[in-house]
């Protein structure tokens, strides 16, 4: 039999057949490694998790037309999006003035399904427009015009080139040349915000009403990036797409950065405390183990074991516990991270295979550090004590 085989036989027997004592150390390392692996996994995934959370708070960058430009074309918007990476959602809005019974209103053309999907705070009585000729009315406007779901309303649009001079003014003072179109109210929008003052329709209906391709006044971008990366994105767009002026929504980006840095500090603190606790528990257990086994150590030395052999054996036991604890902890840590992720962030988490060796190495390092002092004490045991009947 090889000496290494006998070595592993001895240390595994020591752990397997002296379960009660070693279980305490194993439990400490496993719990520590679980928390450690779980926190690292959450920490690693946190920017994405937080990004998803902050998505609910709206865009973190907006694109507006640059300078004198009337609006941004679809091509310009796509060019700006193409110049940067990480755009999770983009919604472009086209605002136009119109009237209902000569009372001014603002109509908004956009991809309503996309807007609704990224605006969880939107409450709709009725439904989103699903057919041509349907319109979503903000609550304020619905009350003002006494509109209800299912009502029809005639919206008048005056093209910018139609003026009183060219179109003439009728007896009531209204400008001639207006385009009238009837819409059915599919839903009433309640947001508690400025959206309640608008009429929303699909891009296509808007194009049909105003009689030309849309140019956009605002594009809201939700980009999964931190504040520095967003700033770099702004510079890229400014350099590459002259017709578009990017602006950061600082309220969102700064909140995200602040929350992330605070959570990171918390995770770091808990990690350090966890590592310290593992060390204390393992060191205490190993000290107790050495004390309990003084006679055995004396015997081994009496049989000819060198100090190095004794250290190697006790360190081996400690490291085996560290290895098993680290391995268990890396998998249990995923479970822990999954629980945190689903309960706190309401989303799933990605398993990081690289975390298995990392957790094991950290568990081994912490266990080795914790074992140094007790193991050194083990070498100080006098072999003669086995003869004294102690």
């Amino acid at each position, binding site marked *: *039999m090889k000496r290494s085989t006998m070595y592993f036989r001895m240390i595994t027997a020591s752990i397997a*057949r002296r379960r009660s004592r070693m279980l305490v150390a194993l439990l400490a390392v496993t719990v520590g490694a679980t928390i450690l692996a779980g926190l690292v996994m959450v920490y690693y995934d946190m920017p994405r998790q937080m990004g998803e959370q902050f998505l609910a708070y709206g865009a973190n960058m907006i694109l507006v037309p640059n300078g004198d430009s009337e609006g941004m074309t679809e091509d310009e918007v796509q060019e700006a999006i193409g110049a940067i990476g990480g755009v999770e959602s983009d919604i472009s809005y086209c605002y136009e003035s119109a009237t209902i019974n000569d009372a001014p209103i603002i109509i908004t053309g956009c991809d309503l399904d996309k807007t609704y999907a990224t605006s969880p705070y939107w409450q709709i009585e009725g439904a989103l427009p699903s057919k041509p000729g349907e319109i979503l009315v903000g609550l304020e406007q619905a009350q003002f015009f006494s509109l209800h779901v299912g009502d029809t309303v005639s919206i008048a649009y005056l093209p910018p080139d139609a003026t009183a001079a060219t179109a003439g003014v009728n007896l009531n003072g209204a400008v001639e040349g207006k385009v009238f179109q009837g819409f059915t109210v599919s839903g009433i929008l309640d947001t508690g915000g400025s959206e309640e003052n608008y009429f929303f329709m699909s891009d296509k209906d808007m194009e049909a009403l105003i009689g030309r391709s849309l140019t956009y006044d605002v594009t809201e971008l939700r980009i999964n990036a931190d504040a520095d990366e967003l700033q770099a994105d702004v510079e890229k767009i400014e350099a590459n797409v002259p017709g578009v002026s990017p602006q950061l929504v600082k309220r969102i980006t700064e909140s995200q950065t602040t929350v992330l840095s605070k959570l990171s500090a918390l995770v770091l603190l808990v990690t350090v405390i966890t590592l310290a606790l593992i060390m204390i528990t393992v060191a205490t257990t190993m000290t107790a183990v050495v004390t309990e086994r003084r006679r055995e150590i004396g015997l081994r030395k*009496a*049989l000819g074991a*060198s100090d190095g052999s004794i250290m190697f054996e006790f360190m081996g036991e400690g490291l085996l516990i560290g290895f098993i604890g680290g391995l268990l902890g890396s998998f249990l840590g995923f479970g822990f991270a999954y629980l945190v992720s689903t309960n706190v962030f309401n989303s799933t988490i990605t398993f990081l295979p690289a975390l298995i060796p990392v957790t094991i190495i950290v568990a081994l390092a912490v266990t080795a550090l914790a074992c140094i002092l007790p193991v050194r004490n083990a070498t100080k045991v006098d072999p003669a004590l*086995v*003869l004294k009947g102690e």
Partner: protein
Amino acid sequence: MALLELKNVYKIYGDLHALDDVSLKIDVGEWVAIMGPSGSGKSTVMNIIGCMDKPTRGEVLLDGVDIANESSRGLTDIRRDKIGLIFQQFHLINYLTALENVMVAQYYHSMPDEKEALEALERVGLADRAKHLPSQLSGGEQQRVCVARALINHPELILADEPTGNLDESNEKIVLDLFRQLHDEGTTLIVVTHDAEVGAAAERVITLEYGKVTSEDGDTSFGKVARRDVV
């Protein structure tokens, strides 16, 4: 030819002379019993002969090497290579089987050999108990495992400390029979005991009293050194 020779050995703890000018010689193949009452210096002699302690003064030659001048590592090497130890309380490692306990001595000495360890257990009549833990063995069986462990590396000297102190009569007989076999094979045996029967089984009895050798001729009666002679 002398395997072990103590020349004017002293072991002094403060004012106490645990060994006081002890000189003795043990030849290769001899079976010697060291006897004496409590506090006579038996354990101190055992520690020194077993390379677990060094004398304050004097020479201790084991196979020609003066262990008094050896470093702690040197003493460990001598213990491992030349001495087989048998203890009163057996001192088996409680989480290792009988076989593994024997193999531990091989592990520190050279190379563990399961077959050879099993043969050693067979020799002490415990082949069928090889896979048992010490807690599953009787006292006599544990002591026989201890004997198997002591002889596994074919040491030049077997040193036994009260080897029958915790055994009943029948197990005492088994152990003494084993010693007899080892002696017949030429192994040098030093047995520290206060049991007259164990002493009588040896070829020669060295008696210690108050740290001095009072007899080397088999006279096991104590009281030859007056208390006042002890410094």
